């Protein structure tokens, strides 16, 4: 790796406009394309400070700074366009979280990398609407939070309460949300409002290790720990009235439920297994990368194909997982308000994946090309009239669900034409970490964090309170900064802002 002083490093970075920086070739060795990242002034400081810290003599260990990771991804074989960092970017395994990159499917050298998807495959956000308003929920929010907590299994090592055997799991891995539909856990309309209609067709459970299945089976239908949560939120602000009304959001104060979860231990095991296989494939095919963590295989190699099929199965796992929790949430609400989920109008507004690789067609240099788009900590944001978005959102553009940090706020954005052109239809996914987990544990006290939430009127139920400071708002970038940057850069458009009134967490 090249060692340069901070000032020398800055020569490779160029501010194109108020919200976008270019990373020139040469910043890291062998860059095939340029990189770029979207920031506003505050996020820009965080970004550059991270780079500056890594340039200090003797700075070793830990992850590379986000900018360096973007540039390393730009050096991967077969990448097209640019390696793109979204405003919520922070260092991750190989790829930074908040990095998207597209690879040409027709180039035999193009690669697929598990690091570009992340360990929590198809981690994503689902938003349910209700016809309740804040005044209906405020008096009973403690009971409601408890009721949710009593219905949804949460926390490290939690087990699902939907009976499943090994055969059910095999079917669920292959069918995704269609399994949940068949078994009656979700509504037909839920499938319609889900990315990929809740099922990746190339999933092959035979490509998934026994170990992954063993880990996954008991965890299906659980929220998990870490940054995952279920939140009862109220609409705080509507920026785009027409699009909001298309999503069934009519007024401020309307109550919605956000579920943020992924494929649990199953996805983690699939990714771990693939990394082992890919290291071998890299040696065999002589694939060179700047970072050992960027283990990858050619898309058309056996390892590449096996990973894509197993990843699709893990994606299906995650959709079944979120669907099961949708079912449990509806039950909790129905019990609380003594009515049916139908009467509460508890429809899924949308379900997004922000850790996934998908085959999509995009325009590159004026030509339509088939690409493998890696989105790690990045949400798909397709513009109006794109054939892959539900018919109900053809006029508004795809809803993009951006979950904030515990106790702050969340957003719904919509996809734009400009995003399609600039970022292969991708935008941010959340707040993005500012402090590492270890650092948050050292610097913050969990009691203070919980007190603060209580003071702001948020009912909270946590399975393991001692880990709560990892997820404290102080550990994250400001989601509003992130969302405003995406809006100002035009890669997605602000539609709705929500604030939480009750949180349940792992």
């Amino acid at each position: 790796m090249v060692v340069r002083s901070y000032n020398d490093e800055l020569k490779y970075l160029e501010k194109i406009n108020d919200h976008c920086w270019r990373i020139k070739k040469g910043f890291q060795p062998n860059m095939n394309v340029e990189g770029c990242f979207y920031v506003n002034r505050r996020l820009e400081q965080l970004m550059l400070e991270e780079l500056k810290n890594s340039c200090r003599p003797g700075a070793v260990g830990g992850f590379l700074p986000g900018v360096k990771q973007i540039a390393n991804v730009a050096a991967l074989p077969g990448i097209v366009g640019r390696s793109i960092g979204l405003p919520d970017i922070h260092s991750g395994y190989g790829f930074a979280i908040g990095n998207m990159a597209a690879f040409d499917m027709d180039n035999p050298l193009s690669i697929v990398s598990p690091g570009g998807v992340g360990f929590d495959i198809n981690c994503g956000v689902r938003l349910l609407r209700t016809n309740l308003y804040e005044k209906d929920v405020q008096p009973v929010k403690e009971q409601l939070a408890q009721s949710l907590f009593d219905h949804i299994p949460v926390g490290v090592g939690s087990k699902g309460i939907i009976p499943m055997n090994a055969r059910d799991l095999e079917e669920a891995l292959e069918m995704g949300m269609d399994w949940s539909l068949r078994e009656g856990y979700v509504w037909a309309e839920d499938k319609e409002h889900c990315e990929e209609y809740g099922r990746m067709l190339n999933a092959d459970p035979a490509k998934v290790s026994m170990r992954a299945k063993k880990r996954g089976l008991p965890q299906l239908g659980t929220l998990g720990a870490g940054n995952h949560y279920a939140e009862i939120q109220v609409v705080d602000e509507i920026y785009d009235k027409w699009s909001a009304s298309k999503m069934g959001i009519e007024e401020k104060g309307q109550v919605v439920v956000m579920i943020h979860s992924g494929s649990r231990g199953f996805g983690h095991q699939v990714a771990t297994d693939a990394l082992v296989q890919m290291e071998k494939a890299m040696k065999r095919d002589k694939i060179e990368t700047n970072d050992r963590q960027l283990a990858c295989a050619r898309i058309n190699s056996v390892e590449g194909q096996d990973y894509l099929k197993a990843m699709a199965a893990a994606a299906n796992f995650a959709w079944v997982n979120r669907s099961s929790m949708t079912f449990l949430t509806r039950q909790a609400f129905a019990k609380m308000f003594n009515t049916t989920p139908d009467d509460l109008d508890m429809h899924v507004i949308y379900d997004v994946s922000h850790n996934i690789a998908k085959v999509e067609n995009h325009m590159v240099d004026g030509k339509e090309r088939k690409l493998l788009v890696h989105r790690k900590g990045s949400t798909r944001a397709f513009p109006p009239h794109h054939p892959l978005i539900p018919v109900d959102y053809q006029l508004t553009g795809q809803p993009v669900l951006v979950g904030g940090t515990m106790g702050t706020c969340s957003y719904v954005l919509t996809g734009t034409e400009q995003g399609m052109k600039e970022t292969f239809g991708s935008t941010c996914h959340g707040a993005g970490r500012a402090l590492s987990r270890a650092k948050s544990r050292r610097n913050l006290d969990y009691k203070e964090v919980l007190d603060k939430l209580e003071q702001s009127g948020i009912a909270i139920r946590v399975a393991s309170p001692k880990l709560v400071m990892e997820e404290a708002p102080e550990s994250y970038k400001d989601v509003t900064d992130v969302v405003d940057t995406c809006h100002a850069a035009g890669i997605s458009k602000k539609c709705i802002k929500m604030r939480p009134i009750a949180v349940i967490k792992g």
Partner: protein
Amino acid sequence: MLKKKLEALGYPTPSDMALSNRKDFASIVLWLEDQKIRQYAIEDRVILRNVENIEMWEDAYQKYCADLNMPSLGTQNEQLAWIVGHAIRLEFLDDPAQYESINSKQMQPKINNKQSQKKEQMIFDGQINVNDKEFIAGVRTLAGQLNVPHHPNHLVQLEAVARVVHERLSPAARGRQPIVGTPFPFDKGNDVVSDSDAALDLPMRILRLLQIQSLRQLQTHINETIVSVQNLTANPKTDTKLGKVGF
């Protein structure tokens, strides 16, 4: 279409015909008068030749339009379309015999032979002669009463009539509750068609809405199918003994 017509008349450079420029427009008009229309005697055309001095030309053009008995038309394109049409009519009248072999009766089957045959089969199972004069007249009258715009192919028009009847007049449509809620103003959506060309924008939006409507019908149909299958297969259960909830 205009380009095709000009090409048919033998206009020398229709491929790079740009009508943004009044001067180009003037030279096309002049060419048509010179070659095809010949409304004026050669020496009287001098005033129209003043293409370089566009202001003087405009006066001559006004008079020319009046002499051609052109109805008052709004845009430059409409006027040109009318003049070209006039030129074609004159060209045809010069020697109608030459075009005898090309007429609509023979061209029609050539253009959409397969299509219309299929359509004929589909309508009434081929039991009725859909090219019967009375039938055609019936379709035209029906279309007139329902305010369906004219189409040269009466079968296409019949399809439109069927759609109107299905959507508005069928028993199912009549019993349907009127749609409530706030209408979505389709000209205010996030979708962009064209910033500059309003003439393109509106029809595109309407076409897209129609497409969305048919997609919606398809999706509703799919959902209904899923629900009917669910009635057979669904049996959701939970068992709280399996895991731990509510600490």
